[in-house]
C-alpha cells in the first residue's frame, strides 16, 4: 500500500461537542483526482484542515504518506480559498511563490535551487510574465494560478484545493481545469467545492460530504447519496461528456 497519500480512518471531529465530521473514512491514492462536494457548513473545510493536521480529530486516525500529518503535511500542496487573502498585501508574485520554499529553506537564505523551483512552478501555471506584479493587480483566475504555483514550489505529492472555482469566470475555469489535468500526471489532486457542476466533469472520483462522507471510490454518485448530503431532493443533471457522472435516473 505504498501509493497511499492520505488516509483517514473513522475520523470524528467535534466543535463544542457538536459533531462536524462523523465517522469519515477515505483514502487518497497517488494518481487520484478526487472531488468532494457538499453544502456550505457540511464540514468540507474541516476535512481539509484534518488532512493538513490543523484540526485534531476527536476520534479516528489520520495518516499522511503513512506518517503523522503534522510532520508530513509539508508534502501537501495546499491551495486555500483565495477570497481569504488581503489582496493589498505588499508582495509580488515571485515572492508569493518563493514562500512555498520557505519551509524547506527555514532559517537560511533562499538558494539558487529554491529560486529555480519557484521559477519552474510559475512557468508551469503560465504566470511567468506576471512575476513582478503585486498580488492584488491580478484577476481572480490569475491569482488562483499563483497560489497553485506556490503550492507546487514546495514539491508536493498531493494538491488540496479549497473551493478553487470561486471568483473565477467560466472561461478561466476551463483553463484552470486543463491545468489540473496536466498536474494530475505528477500528483494526486483533491478538490473541495459546494458547486457540483463545476467539478464533476473533470474529476475521476466524487465523494459527497455533509458531516458523513458518502464515497464509493468511483465517479458515480447515487440520488440517495445526494439526498443524504444536501438534505433535500436534488435535481440531477447528467453531463454525458466526457464521462457519465450519474446513473440513469
Amino acid at each position, binding site marked *: 500500500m505504498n501509493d497511499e497519500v492520505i488516509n483517514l480512518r473513522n475520523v470524528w471531529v467535534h466543535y463544542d461537542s457538536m459533531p462536524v465530521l462523523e465517522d469519515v473514512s477515505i483514502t487518497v491514492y497517488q494518481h487520484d483526482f478526487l472531488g468532494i462536494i457538499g453544502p456550505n457548513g457540511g464540514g468540507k473545510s474541516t476535512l481539509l484542515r484534518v488532512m493538513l493536521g*490543523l484540526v485534531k480529530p476527536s476520534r479516528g486516525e489520520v495518516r499522511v504518506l503513512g506518517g503523522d500529518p503534522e510532520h508530513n503535511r509539508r508534502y501537501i500542496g495546499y491551495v486555500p480559498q483565495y477570497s481569504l487573502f488581503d489582496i493589498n498585501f505588499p*508582495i509580488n508574485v515571485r*515572492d508569493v511563490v518563493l*514562500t512555498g520554499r*520557505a519551509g524547506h529553506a527555514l532559517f537560511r537564505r533562499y538558494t539558487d535551487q529554491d529560486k529555480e523551483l519557484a521559477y519552474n512552478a510559475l512557468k508551469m501555471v503560465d504566470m511567468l510574465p506576471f512575476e513582478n506584479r503585486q498580488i492584488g493587480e491580478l484577476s481572480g483566475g490569475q491569482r488562483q494560478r499563483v497560489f497553485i504555483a506556490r503550492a507546487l514550489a514546495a514539491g508536493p505529492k498531493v494538491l488540496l484545493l479549497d473551493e478553487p472555482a470561486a471568483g473565477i469566470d467560466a472561461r478561466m475555469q476551463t483553463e484552470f481545469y486543463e491545468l489540473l489535468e496536466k498536474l494530475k500526471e505528477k500528483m494526486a489532486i483533491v478538490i473541495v467545492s459546494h458547486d457540483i457542476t463545476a467539478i464533476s466533469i473533470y474529476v475521476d472520483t466524487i465523494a459527497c460530504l455533509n458531516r458523513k462522507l458518502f464515497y464509493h471510490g468511483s465517479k458515480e454518485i447515487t440520488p440517495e447519496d445526494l439526498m443524504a448530503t444536501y438534505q433535500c431532493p436534488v435535481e440531477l443533471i447528467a453531463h454525458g461528456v466526457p464521462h457519465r457522472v450519474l446513473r440513469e435516473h
Partner: protein
Amino acid sequence: MIEILQYGFMVNALAAASLAAIACGIIGVYVVVKRIVFISGGISHASFGGIGLGYFLGIDPVLCVIPFSIASALSIGEVSRRTKVSEDSAIGIIWTMGMAIGIMFISLTPGYAPDLFSYLFGNILTVPRSDLWIMLLLDIAIIAVVYLLYKEFLAITFDEEFATVIGIPAHKLYLVLLCLIALTVVVLIRVVGVILVIALLTIPAAVSRRFTDDLRKMMVLSIFFAALFSITGLYMSYALDLPSGSTIVLVSGIVFSLLELFRHVRRNPPLSAI
C-alpha cells in the same frame, strides 16, 4: 534650526527621534500589513504596568517596561490560542490590567510622581542619555532579528496557515514578532508615551504603503517618514511651546490625511475636468 542644537537636550531629542524612527519604521510595517494594530495598542497600554513598577522599585521605568511589555505580548499571543476567549476580548483585558497595575504601583509609591505625564504622552525633550543607550541596543536587536527572519516573517504575515502547513513554526515566530512590537513600544515610550505609541506604529507605515508595493522599501520609507514627522513635530513643539508627543502625532496625522485627500482628488477628478 542650527542654533537650537547648541542645547544638549536638543541633541538628545534628535537622537531619540531618529532611534525611535528606526524601530517604528521597521516594526510598524508588520503591524500595518498584518493588521495587528489593536494587538499593538494592547501591548503598549499594558506596558504602563512596567512604568508603575519602575516607580515603585525606584529603578529606571524604561528598563522596567521591557519585561512587562514582553510578558503582555506573550499573554496576548497565547491567551486566545489556549482558552476559548476571543482574541479581542483577551486584548481588552490585558490592555486594562496592565494600566490598572501601573496606577496601583504609582499610588503605592510614596511621594508625587513628577514625570508620570511624560510616560503617558511622551516628552522627547527630557530623554536622559542612559535611555538613549537602551533605545540604541533595542534598535540593534530589532534590526538583527528582522534581518535574520525576514523571509519567515514575510511568509507568516502574508498567510499564517499556509506557512504552518509548509513547516514554518508560524505561531512561535508570531510570538517573536509580538515581542519585537513590545520592544518597539519601549523605544517609543520616551518620544510619544504609551498612549500615543500606536500613532507612530501605524501612520508612517500607512503613508509609505502609498508609495511602494515592496515590503523592504516600505520599511526604509517609513523610517524616513517617522523621522520626518518626529523631527518636524519636535521643532514645532520647541518653536510654539507645545507638548512634543502630541505635536509629533498631530503632524503625522495631518500629513496622512492630506496625502489621502490628495490621492482621492487625483484619482477621482471632478466631472468638469473630464
